[in-house]
Structure formats: structure tokens, C-alpha cells
């Protein structure tokens, strides 16, 4: 049985009628994760003992889980496999943020999202590789080396979370998104990704670099899995002041109530993105035509400041990173270097513990928040955030969704593309994605499979309206054939 690509219902049935043993399932899952690690470097930690313990608990409790109807969002996820980005705190696994600085760090607590997942009887397969501290998607700053794209290993996957979701090493991957990293990686790997409204999923236990922009998001191979997982982990958390207090909608029921009367807006200057590939232009235009034939109303609208969103998000995130990462100084946790006195120890520790890319980014954050540049750059970026938010919110008063490509280009090639364009200030990959981080709005990347590397289509929704995004993704799933790659493990 190819459990990892079968439905959860099929799995539950097999557990119920005992045609699958815990050991068999545990061995298959561990073996798949090890293969994905070996071929693509998608994981930082895989622990077969944790996997087999969680599977044993699932088998023991399967009848209770199937009969519990009073806690549906959580039990709906029972038997799902999931992976967590390595900047989400887990007490049972090291949480390294893919940095030498935290390469042996074991958090004394679990992230809120992980606590909820543990309650759900879902099975963690491991902690995924990423850019150091989740900054960007270029594949050149992880202390554990870059993640290879399963479609073509010469190209970056963007993150191990995306590679894990694509290869079936997890039904759901959770990772962070501060300027679009989650959605960009999903686009590079051709999987679905949802960055929820800021605060919809608690950020407690996320070791973030840009607090005001960053959320935990999800990746999967279909819309329904995204909805099921979101329902299980969304909700208020008294220990996160930024968590939304509003009730979590019943995503699973609501997304099926689709009357098909979507009105969609597209920024009229969407083709101005630097490095926009011709193939992406053609694919995006094809999608617009396809949507029109299904009765979706598509209008081109003017969003004059959208083009500055990546620049504003880069400035804000660099300044926040300069502040947030100041506590990695070798005193309370993490790597420590030698130094004759305290200041020398701080500087040596941070210079050796951070990658070259992060050192430059933090120095940029320090520079741009210094008195000489503060008003003209940081303060302007904070004001632009409000202007861009207002533009998006006004547009979404009239339309259900805003539509753009997810990234201007497909997954960059390690040797050729990455150094010349992916370390830019701003990173050109974030041209379309950063606006929703500034505005705190939800957005979804829908995979577009081609003959070569995939692309992504970005849908942006109103605040707290993940339902419309998921409904639209269901509609797109019907209209697009997804040609998943075959794996020999």
C-alpha cells in the first residue's frame, strides 16, 4: 500500500481492520523520509523513535479518535503526517533555525502549533531544512546546505518543507512566511501553500526574524488537506498577543458551499516585476482566460504602490531582524566563540555563528535604522506599509480575490542564478508575495505544473477570509491537471 499518497480515510480503515501494523507503517514512513533526506537534503532532524511512538499512540487510540465528534477540527487530522520548519520550537527535536548559532539548541517549550498537532494524533516526520532563520528562499544560507528541488536537483527547492510536501515525506508541512518564503518555495516545488491572516495561527514558539510580518503557514498536495490542517491549528492563544480572538470558521464545510460567482482583480502592472519570465507571463495569461471561461469575472485594476511592497518589507524585516536576533550572543543559548572580554565574545560569536548572508542582512538592518537613514527609509517603509494595506483592503472591498503570479520566475539554479539575484535588497522573488505580509492578509499559492519546473499562482484574500481562498483553490483544482512527479521510494 502506498500509504503516503492514499487518503487518510483509507489509512484509518486499514488501521481499524488491522491490515496494517504500526511497525510496518513506521518503517515505511522512516524509510521514505530518509530517502527524501538523502536525495534532496530536505530535513535537519528525523527521529525514527518519535515516529514509531506517535504511530503506536495512533493505533491504540484509533477507535476513540474515530468516534470523538466533539473535537472535530483536531481529530480530523489524526493519521496525517506533518513536518515542521526548523524555526518552530519542539522540545523533542533540536530547533536549529538552520544556523550554526543554534545547531544544538533544544527549546525548553513547544510552539503552540506543535502542542495542537500533538493533541491531534497526527504524526511528525521531522524538522525541515530552510534558509538560515527562514530569511529568503534562495538555498544558499542553511548551515546544513541547500535543499535540492525534487523536480530538478540542479535547482533550489526553496525549503525542505516544500520538498517534504511534494515527495510525500509529510501530508502537511508547516513553515514560516515573512516576505513570502513559504509561498515562493511552494511555487518552486509545485505544491499548495496557505499563508493565513496574521494572527490566525499562534506565533508562540516561532523563532521569527520579522515579528510584524511573519506567520506560520502550511503546504500540502491538495486544498482539502490545507483546510483540514488549518482547522486543527488555527485559533486564539492567550500567550500570543498577536493571535486573533475571533472564532475559527468551519473551513471544511464552508469551502464546499461554492456558488462560483467569484470576482477577481489583477494588478494592471503585474508584468513590471524584475526578472519576470516569458513562460510565467504566458501561463498566467492562460489561467486568466481559463477563469473567465468558468464564469469568474476578472478585472485589471490600478494598485500604484504594490510595486514597492518588496522594498518596504525588506527594510522593515531587516530592522526587525537586527533587533530580534540580538539575543543570539553566546550567553544564554547557542554557539559561543572565545573572547578576551564580553564585547569581543559577542562579536566573535555572531561573526562565526551566522552565515555571510545573514551577517550582511543584519548589518543592513543596523544601518537603515541608524539616525541618518531612519526617517528616509525605515519610517517611510512603515508608512508605505499602511498605504499598501489600504490599497489592498480597498480593492478587496470590491473583489473577492486579487490574483498575481507567486514568483516572477521558477526555482533558481544553484550555481547560475542564486548569488547574482537572490541576495538582492530587495530579493526579487518577493515582488508579488511581500504585500500580504505588510497588510497581514491571507494568501494562497496554487501550483501550476508544466513540462519543466512548476510555477505558482497567488490568490490574495480579505482579512480572515481564508474560506474564499480555499474555495477558489478547489475551483482551480478542477480546472487544472496537476502532473505530480513519480518517486521511486
Amino acid at each position, binding site marked *: 500500500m502506498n500509504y503516503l499518497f492514499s487518503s487518510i480515510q483509507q489509512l484509518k480503515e486499514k488501521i481499524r481492520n488491522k491490515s496494517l501494523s504500526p511497525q510496518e507503517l513506521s518503517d515505511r514512513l522512516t524509510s521514505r523520509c530518509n530517502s527524501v533526506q538523502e536525495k534532496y537534503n530536505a530535513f535537519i532532524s528525523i527521529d525514527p523513535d518519535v515516529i514509531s511512538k506517535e504511530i503506536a499512540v495512533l493505533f491504540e487510540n484509533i477507535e476513540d479518535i474515530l468516534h470523538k465528534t466533539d473535537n472535530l477540527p483536531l481529530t480530523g487530522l489524526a493519521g496525517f503526517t506533518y513536518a515542521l520548519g526548523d524555526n518552530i520550537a519542539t522540545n523533542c527535536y533540536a530547533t536549529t533555525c538552520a544556523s550554526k548559532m543554534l545547531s544544538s539548541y533544544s527549546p*525548553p517549550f513547544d510552539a503552540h502549533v506543535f502542542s495542537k498537532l500533538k493533541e491531534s494524533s497526527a504524526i511528525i516526520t521531522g524538522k525541515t531544512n530552510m534558509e538560515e532563520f527562514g530569511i529568503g528562499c534562495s538555498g544558499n544560507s542553511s548551515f546544513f546546505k541547500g535543499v535540492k528541488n525534487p523536480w530538478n536537483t540542479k535547482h533550489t527547492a526553496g525549503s525542505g518543507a516544500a520538498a517534504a510536501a511534494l515527495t510525500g515525506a509529510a501530508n502537511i508541512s508547516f513553515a514560516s512566511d515573512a516576505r513570502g518564503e513559504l509561498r515562493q518555495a511552494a511555487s518552486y516545488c509545485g505544491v499548495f501553500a496557505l499563508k493565513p491572516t496574521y494572527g490566525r495561527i499562534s506565533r508562540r514558539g516561532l523563532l521569527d526574524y520579522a515579528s510584524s510580518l511573519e506567520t506560520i503557514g502550511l503546504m500540502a498536495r491538495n486544498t482539502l488537506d490545507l483546510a483540514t490542517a488549518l482547522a486543527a491549528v488555527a485559533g486564539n492563544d492567550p500567550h500570543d498577543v498577536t493571535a486573533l480572538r475571533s472564532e475559527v470558521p468551519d473551513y471544511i464545510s464552508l469551502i464546499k458551499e461554492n456558488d462560483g460567482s467569484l470576482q477577481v482583480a489583477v494588478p494592471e502592472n503585474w508584468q513590471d516585476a524584475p526578472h519576470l519570465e516569458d513562460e510565467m507571463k504566458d501561463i498566467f495569461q492562460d489561467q486568466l482566460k481559463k477563469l473567465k471561461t468558468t464564469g469568474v469575472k476578472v478585472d485589471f485594476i490600478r494598485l500604484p504602490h504594490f510595486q514597492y511592497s518588496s522594498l518596504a518589507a525588506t527594510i522593515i524585516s531587516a530592522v526587525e531582524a537586527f533587533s530580534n536576533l540580538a539575543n543570539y550572543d553566546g550567553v544564554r543559548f547557542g554557539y559561543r566563540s572565545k573572547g578576551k572580554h*564580553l564585547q569581543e565574545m559577542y*562579536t566573535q560569536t555572531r561573526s562565526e555563528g551566522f552565515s555571510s548572508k545573514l551577517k550582511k542582512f543584519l548589518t*543592513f538592518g543596523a544601518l537603515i535604522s541608524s539616525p541618518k537613514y531612519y526617517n528616509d527609509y525605515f519610517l517611510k517603509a512603515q508608512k508605505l*506599509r499602511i498605504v499598501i494595506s489600504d490599497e489592498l483592503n480597498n480593492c478587496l472591498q470590491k473583489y473577492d480575490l486579487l490574483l498575481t503570479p507567486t514568483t516572477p520566475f521558477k526555482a533558481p539554479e544553484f550555481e547560475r542564478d542564486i548569488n547574482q539575484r537572490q*541576495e538582492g535588497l530587495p530579493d526579487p522573488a518577493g515582488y508579488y508575495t511581500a504585500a500580504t505580509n505588510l497588510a497581514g492578509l491571507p494568501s494562497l499559492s496554487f501550483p501550476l505544473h508544466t513540462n519543466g519546473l512548476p510555477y505558482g499562482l497567488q490568490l490574495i484574500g480579505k482579512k480572515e477570509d481564508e474560506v474564499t481562498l480555499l474555495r477558489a483553490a478547489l475551483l482551480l483544482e478542477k480546472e487544472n491537471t496537476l502532473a505530480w512527479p513519480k518517486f521511486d521510494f
Partner: protein
Amino acid sequence: MQVSSEELKNASWDARIELTQQEEKELQEQLHNFFMLSQAMQNIDLNEVEAFSDAHKNQNILRKDIVEPSLPLKQALENAPDTDTSSFHVPRIIEE
């Protein structure tokens, strides 16, 4: 706009980071590109816009002031590179 080497050194000191010569050169190139791209942003009139550090404009979110258990000492010290039974050890603070 050109950032002087001294400005960059001051910024990296603020971040407690020492850049190599190569890193300094690479950052100068990135900054050159950044300032070029930022020129258009400088022309946008934002005088009437209030700056906000949070898109949802949240302010003063408080919860009830109830004492909860804090992190036990042992756990707090567990990840530190140099400790004794109750404190973190650091090198001397004053330079020789």
C-alpha cells in the same frame, strides 16, 4: 548614494558583527542597488500618512495580570554554553 566604510563599520559594530573585506564589498554592491531602487520610493509623498508597526493596527493588547509558573532555573540554564548552578558565565566585561 555611497555608504562610507566607516558608516558600514559602525553599523556592523551595532549588530556586533565583523564583516570580512569580501563581505563588506558584497554589501556595498547590494547597498548601491538598494539605494538605486529606493529612489522612486523617496519621491512618494507620505507626509500625511501615519506610520504603523503592525498592519492590523493592534495596540496595547493586555491579558489579566495573573502570576504563572516561570521557566525553572535548571531548564533556563540547560542550553547555555557556560554556567554554574544558578547563573550564566560570561568573560570579563571590562577590557584589559
